[in-house]
Each structure stands twice: as structure tokens, then as C-alpha cells.
């Protein structure tokens, strides 16, 4: 059982990387990755958020949607609970733990419009993961996102000193670098076989 969880984890981080294979979280990926510090904290906040969203999504699916036979409410239920949950948790942290809010809490609102998190929640549904496996999958995908965004931030800090053609400045060159990174991650494709 543990072996399978480790496989799911490594596959989520390296093989099925959320940014470079499923094109998720591209808005923050283009926006945030110009300095290392904010990239790392954004990455870890996303991982933290994905790890709590995974069990919540799993519970909604099993206890609400399957029991009552309302498959078409899937998207609406997920998104309204996630959006409201986030606003509530952020307010609680901001009120009672200002220090924690300064470090992590500021990234909580990120959930509502981050494609990665909704996609991950819906993938759990599609693949009928068990609860434990969902959490590992959420955590692994978040780390995959962090890995991609940190590598990109490191490269982009170097790019400041090279003379990039004027028309490619900013997002253009970032996309081309992301393309090369994706090429490397394609190489990792056959690493692990696990669904």
C-alpha cells in the first residue's frame, strides 16, 4: 500500500506535472516566476491549499453527490464550497494568527481562480481515488507545481541579464523557456506506470 502511495506521489510531482503537462496554473506561473522568494512561497501555499482541498472534494463527492445521485451538480458544488471555504479560512487566519497570515495566509485566496486546484479536485472524482490517495495526490501535484515554478523563477532571474529580443520580453521568453522545461519533463514520461 505504501509503495503504491509513493508511486502516486512521485508520479504527481515528476511525471504528470501539473504545469508542464496539464497546463494548469499558467497565470501564476507566468506572473509570479520572476523572483525566487515569492515563487517558493506561492508554490508551498498552493501545495497547502491543494492538500486541504483534496479531502474536502472527496467528501463532497462521496457523501453528497453519489448518495443523492446528482452528478450534474459536481462543478457547482465543488466551486461554491471551495470559494466560500477559502474566504472563511483566510479571514480566520487573518484575525487570529496575523504572523501565519503574513507568511501563508495571503496566498489562500489563490484557490478560487487557480485552475490547478479545481482540476485536481475533479481528477479525484474521475479516477475514484481513495481518501488517503487523494491527499497524497493533492500534495504531490502541489509540489509538482512548486518545482516547476521554482525552476522557472531561477531561470528568469538569470534572463534579466541577457538581451532578449524586444518582442519576446516578458511573457514571450517565459513561454519559450517553459516549452524547453516541458521537453525535459516529457523525457521523464515513462518513469512510473501508475494510474
Amino acid at each position, binding site marked *: 500500500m505504501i509503495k503504491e502511495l509513493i508511486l502516486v506521489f512521485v508520479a504527481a510531482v515528476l511525471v504528470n506535472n501539473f504545469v*508542464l*503537462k*496539464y*497546463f*494548469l*496554473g*499558467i*497565470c501564476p506561473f*507566468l506572473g509570479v516566476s520572476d523572483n525566487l522568494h515569492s515563487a517558493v512561497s506561492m508554490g508551498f501555499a498552493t501545495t497547502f491549499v491543494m492538500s486541504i482541498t483534496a479531502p474536502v472534494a472527496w467528501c463532497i463527492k462521496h457523501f453528497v453527490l453519489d448518495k443523492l445521485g446528482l452528478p*450534474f*451538480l*459536481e*462543478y*457547482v458544488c465543488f*466551486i*461554491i464550497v471551495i*470559494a*466560500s471555504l477559502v*474566504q472563511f479560512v483566510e479571514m480566520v487566519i487573518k484575525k487570529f494568527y496575523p504572523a501565519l497570515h503574513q507568511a501563508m495566509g495571503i496566498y489562500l485566496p489563490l484557490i*478560487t*481562480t*487557480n*485552475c490547478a*486546484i*479545481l*482540476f485536481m479536485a*475533479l*481528477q479525484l472524482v*474521475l479516477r475514484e481515488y481513495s481518501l488517503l490517495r487523494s491527499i497524497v495526490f493533492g500534495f504531490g501535484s502541489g509540489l509538482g507545481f512548486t518545482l516547476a515554478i521554482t525552476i522557472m523563477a531561477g531561470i528568469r532571474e538569470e534572463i534579466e541579464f541577457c538581451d532578449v*529580443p*524586444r*518582442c*519576446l520580453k516578458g*511573457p*514571450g*521568453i*517565459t*513561454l*519559450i523557456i*517553459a*516549452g*524547453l522545461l*516541458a*521537453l525535459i*519533463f*516529457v523525457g521523464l514520461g515513462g518513469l512510473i506506470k501508475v494510474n
Partner: protein
Amino acid sequence: MTKTPVILKDFAKGLWQENPVFRLLIGMCPTLAVTSQAQNGLAMGLATSFTLIASSTIVSIFRKLIPKEVRIPSYILIIATFVTIVSLYLQAKFPDISKDLGPYIPLIIVNCLILGRQEVFASKNPTHRAAADALGMGLGFTISLVALGMVRELLGSGTIFSFKVLGDGFRPWIIMLTPPGAFLSLGLMLGMINIIDRLLKGKS
């Protein structure tokens, strides 16, 4: 010159000056993901435009009733409803497109483009202007997706809308259909659009 009506200006800006994909650079997730075929790009563009127009209209009709504190959850709820309708319609009427687009249809809900337009435009302007803006943005988004889709499909499998264009002698660049190809072609296309824009500005 006669003062162009405001609606026309709202509509036109979505096509070029504020083209969501190439100028505002939002809504990139579906742009990269489904454009391995021009047909899928068109389908995703139309689905997104329908959702954008429908929710912009509804949001601008009720803009005075929705309290400030819960405006984001309410907008997302309206958008999610329309996206579910689109998803069910596609599964019923176009099953193969629905299978191709697959997991990316629900991602229209969190598409920064739609939520962004609700917040910046639809909730602050009368309905007719909001609808015009949504139409312009939707059309701009669809055109960009189809353009990128055509480039990737032409180079990736030698066809456009699955009509054989390049002869059999052409060995397709398979990379164009994989993620690296998506990033590279969008990056280069962005560069090209910037050059064209600078030429246009240079002239006028």
C-alpha cells in the same frame, strides 16, 4: 469623424487592443491545452464565449442586488451553472468533441478571463455594454484559439480542420501536438503579434 458609438468601441477592443490571449495574457490554460487541433480550439472558444456572454449579461442585470462581500462566490456560481449547461449539451449533442476537450471544459469556470470581465466590466456597466464587451472578448478569444490551433495542427499533423493540406511528403512535427510544442508556438506567436503591433503603431 463621427463619434463611434460606445458599444462598437466596447466590442472592438476585445478583438485587438485588449485581445485576451495575446494582449492581456489571461485564460492561458485552455489556450495551451486544447489547441492541438483547430476544431477543438474552435469548440473551446465558442464554449467560453457562450459562458462569458451569458454570465456577463446576468451579472450586469443583477449588478445592484449582489452585495459587495459575496460578489466573487456569486459570480463563480453563475459561471459554473452556465459551464455545466455547456458541458451537458456537448456530451449530449457532440460526444466526440466533449471527449476531446474532456477535463478542460470545467476549467472554463476558473478561467481568469471570464471572472475578470465580470468584475472589471459586467458588474459596473449597463447590460447592453456588458454584452457587447463579452461578445468582443469571446470572439477575440475564439479567433486566437483557432489561429493557434491551426498553426499547431498544420505543423503537427499536416492538416487544417482535418483536411489534408500539406502533401504526403511532409513529415509532421509531432512535437507540436505535445506540451512543449504548445508552449513554444504560443511564445513565438506572442513575439510575432508584438512585432505586428509595433509595425501598426509605427505606421499610424
